[in-house]
């Protein structure tokens, strides 16, 4: 079957999911009731709250799939999925630990040295250790293999020189996963790349925040000026960076954050219409079309999570989830704007539809760019379709 790579088998949640979901939900309701944070849209980019991350860590809801010997919970990927989707649906401030919990933890577990695992994983699971990811550069976006950040061999380690950009959270995180060229560019452009774990407070690191459309700075330019990285902070094998990075991408592209970034705006829209005496059949259908897609995307995303948990590498399905899911996030905005007929207001009450609409609108261009532009993802999908053909 040529369509094998675009099929999504149904996944089932483990029996523990129900009670776990209930615990997480009750905790989040208490947090909101106590006024510890205000739910928002796209909080996995913009909601940095280290104290909240530590509270999650105390409850065992970070690093859930990390083995207990490294301070994790040794739980299943699908249990983690339940926790993550509850956090996102609640609009909780998860940005601080997001990258560490989603991607650097699993990467360190897979490629890291024993010392790296012992050092980083317990801190990640406690919600104390935050990472940024240094992939894109001023001249390297979708064409990641063209990165020019250089790693030069020196006594006891490497010196890194170059500029990374669009680095979420680098102004607040302690650690930085950097993809750099450790050998000169040769015929195989995917060879000679390595990953380094860089201390963002090391000498030679300059972090410059970049303001987004909202005026807030979640992104940064990070300049590495001959930053020394000791040998024990190389991640995995020297020269294996490309393979390691692309393996991370299935985790990065298929999670619930690829269709729930604007969920709270949808909830606000539903609340707005539910309060009207007669919302009308057309408005109900518009909301229903969004909810139908949400239900479907959740099944697709769960399917990929189950495949990842089973040790498969569903790269094409992950790309599809991100393509379909991120466009869905944008469609929620279009529908809310048309159906609610409320002007987006960045200064309205924090939990209002007008505020969420403003915030979501100004964040929306990023949805289909971050984690691989949708055009690149569709290229991956199309090549998989053709490769499987007959």
């Amino acid at each position, binding site marked *: 079957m*040529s*369509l094998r790579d*675009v*099929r*999504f088998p*149904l*996944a*089932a*949640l*483990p*029996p523990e*999911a*129900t009670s776990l*979901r209930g615990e997480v*939900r009750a905790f989040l309701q208490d947090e909101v009731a106590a006024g510890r944070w205000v739910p928002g849209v796209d909080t996995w980019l913009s909601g940095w709250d280290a104290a909240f991350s530590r509270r999650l860590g105390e409850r065992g809801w970070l690093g859930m799939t990390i083995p207990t010997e490294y301070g994790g919970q040794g739980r299943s990927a699908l249990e983690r999925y339940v926790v993550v*989707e509850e956090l996102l*649906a609640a609009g909780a401030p998860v940005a601080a630990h997001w990258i560490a919990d989603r991607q650097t933890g699993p990467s360190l577990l897979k490629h890291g040295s024993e010392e790296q695992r012992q050092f980083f994983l317990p801190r990640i699971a406690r919600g104390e250790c935050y990472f940024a990811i240094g992939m894109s550069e001023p001249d390297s976006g979708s064409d990641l293999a063209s990165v020019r950040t250089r790693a030069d061999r020196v006594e006891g380690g490497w010196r890194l020189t170059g500029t990374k950009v669009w680095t979420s959270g680098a102004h607040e995180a302690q650690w930085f996963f950097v993809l750099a060229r450790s050998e000169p560019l040769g015929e195989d452009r995917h060879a000679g790349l390595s990953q380094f774990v860089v201390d963002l407070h090391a000498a030679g690191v300059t972090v410059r925040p970049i303001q987004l459309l909202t005026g807030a700075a979640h992104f940064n330019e990070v300049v590495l000026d001959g930053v020394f990285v000791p040998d024990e902070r190389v991640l995995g094998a020297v020269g294996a960076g490309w393979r390691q990075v692309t393996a991370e991408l299935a985790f990065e592209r298929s999670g619930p954050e690829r269709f729930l970034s604007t*969920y709270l705006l*949808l*909830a*606000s829209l*539903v*609340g*707005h*219409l*539910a309060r009207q005496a007669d*919302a009308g*059949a057309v408005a*109900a*259908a*518009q*909301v*229903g*079309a969004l*909810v*139908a*897609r*949400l*239900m*479907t*995307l*959740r*099944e*697709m995303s769960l*399917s990929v999570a189950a495949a990842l948990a089973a040790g498969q590498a569903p790269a094409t*399905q992950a790309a*599809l989830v991100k*393509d*379909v899911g991120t466009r869905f996030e944008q469609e929620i905005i279009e529908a809310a704007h048309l159906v609610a007929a409320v002007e987006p207001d960045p200064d309205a009450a924090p939990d209002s539809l007008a505020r969420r609409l403003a915030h979501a609108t100004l964040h929306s261009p990023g949805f289909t760019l971050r984690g691989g532009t949708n*055009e690149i*993802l*569709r*290229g991956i*999908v*199309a*090549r998989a*379709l*053709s490769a499987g*053909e*007959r």
Partner: protein
Amino acid sequence: MGHGAMADDLLVATAEELFADTCPPEAVDQAAAGDGWAPQVWQALEQAGMTLLPVPEARGGAGAGLVEAAALLRAAGRHAAPVPLAETALLAGWLLAGAGLDVPSGPLAAAVGEGLTLRRVGDGWRVSGRLSRVPWARVAERLVVLVDVPEPLVLLLDRSAYDVQPGRNVASEPRDEVTFDGAVAAAAAAPGPDATADAFLLRGALGRAVLMSGAAERALDLSVGYAEQRVQFGRPIARFQAVQQHLAEMAGVVAASSIAADAAVRDLQAGAPLARVRVAAAKEQAGRTAGVVARLAHQVHGAIGFTREHVLRQATTRLWAWRDEYGNEQHWARVVGEQALRAGADGLWPQLTSDEERHG
């Protein structure tokens, strides 16, 4: 017998082989040009014991589940099989078995008998009136009708008891007008407790959603194959990014409609609280997918796909026809939306995650 235990992939492989043998594109065309159906496909399905998969064995079926029935139906959709499989297995068989009646062999049609007049004659019933656009009525050996007035009844009518004025959908499948003139019902019984007109529409929609996921897969498959073979500017058009975007866009909606249908089948079979909304979502997604896939598949194929001589139309005309049968996207989106509005802002997420009895 024992199909409930049959592994899904074995069932799908058997079905694929059966349809490949009996239902090549020429057979689909012959059906459209002739009686409107392909009796050799039906006979092969019946010989394999596959026409009544979800009907209990005690009533003449295979005693399998909706999941198996849907796997077969998706294969039928892929091959554009001109047989009343959904109507027989999901609708007529369900109505009869639910009413405690044996399900006869042979192709069956099914309808809700709104507006019909019933008259009691001795132990039986005579039916008068007219039903429009009944799928497969002219090729079915019997028609099963669900009525509510004067009392809830499931009626079984032999083909000889009613007149048919042939009609068709845009895929040239029979959608006939049926006239009853004091027709005597061969059997009649009170419907099963879950057999309402609403439930009938829901199961009809589920059948179409599953068929459509098969037809959409076929359209995508044909498009990928064509884009690989068609050379322009010295290379296959599949190498052009603009064409790749179309193929990937199709793959996204095809995958979505497919898993939406699977989730609906699973939940309806399990009697999950969310089942009705899931079926609604599945038909909504299928209808949305139909428009996108048909448009892009034809765009990729260029003018040749737009002709009678090309097989693509067997998939795309069905997608266009089926999206309007048993409720269109707007109808089912409204069902989902009204449920969401009842849940409200804080209740929506709990509602969407309330289905976790479905643990593996």
